[in-house]
């Protein structure tokens, strides 16, 4: 099988209510493919964290999910302010979210760490003032 499945989602930057729609849809799609439930759980949580980050910090963005034979890749692209200090942003508990975002239960500084926790590979490519691209990968045949 050399062909791969691709899903594309636009993430609305204004809307906390609809945030998560792409992740829930990906979860459904992956379930239909018969993938192991724990892999689906981890992948969809990682993607949701990414979605929420794009809503909180970047005014929205795009999510592309590609299902390969041996792995699933998620690419999150935004044109927000970028991340000035990636190692600081990766620290658990560090957050630049506003009080109003925190009141919703987000902004605990666990988003990026959770994305790393639940994926096998994660790369952050960010330019201040231009935006951020995060690529996450989960392998399907882990020994």
């Amino acid at each position, binding site marked *: 099988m050399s062909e791969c499945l691709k899903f594309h989602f636009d993430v609305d930057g204004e809307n906390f209510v609809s945030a*998560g729609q792409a992740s829930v849809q990906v979860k459904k799609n992956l379930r239909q493919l018969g993938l192991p*439930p724990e892999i689906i759980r981890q992948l969809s949580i990682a993607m949701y964290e990414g979605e929420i980050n794009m809503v909180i910090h970047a005014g929205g963005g795009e999510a592309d999910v590609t299902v390969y034979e041996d792995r699933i890749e998620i690419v999150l692209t935004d044109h927000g302010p970028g991340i000035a200090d990636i190692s600081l942003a990766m620290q658990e508990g560090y957050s630049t979210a506003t009080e109003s975002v925190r009141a*919703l239960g987000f902004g605990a500084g*666990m988003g990026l760490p959770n994305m790393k*926790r639940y994926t096998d590979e994660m790369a952050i490519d960010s330019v201040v003032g231009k935006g951020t691209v995060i690529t996450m990968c989960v392998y399907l045949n882990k020994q």
Partner: protein
Amino acid sequence: MTVGELSKKCGFVTVCMPEPDREVSGCYIGDLLSWVMGRAQSGNAWITIMSNVNIAAVASLTDVAVIILAEGVILDESVVAVASQKGINIVSSDVPAFETAMKLGGCV
């Protein structure tokens, strides 16, 4: 124990229960959604006082068996509708998180 049995035994009030036969194992308590997503396990009962619509997405993605709203927190009807549509079980407890968790002792 199933969500339906647990709710009845502990005297919780049903908010919505589209999947009463779901098995419950273990419990996670927390209101910060990313902590919940990082720590809660599939099949857990999740005790929280958070009431916005995002709890439905978090419950769906983490695959918890039931959300237990502590302190008698009341959900907006729109949140209940979203949760029902996503197949999320929600019950309500009129006591704080600690006492709610104590009721679960021996059940999950």
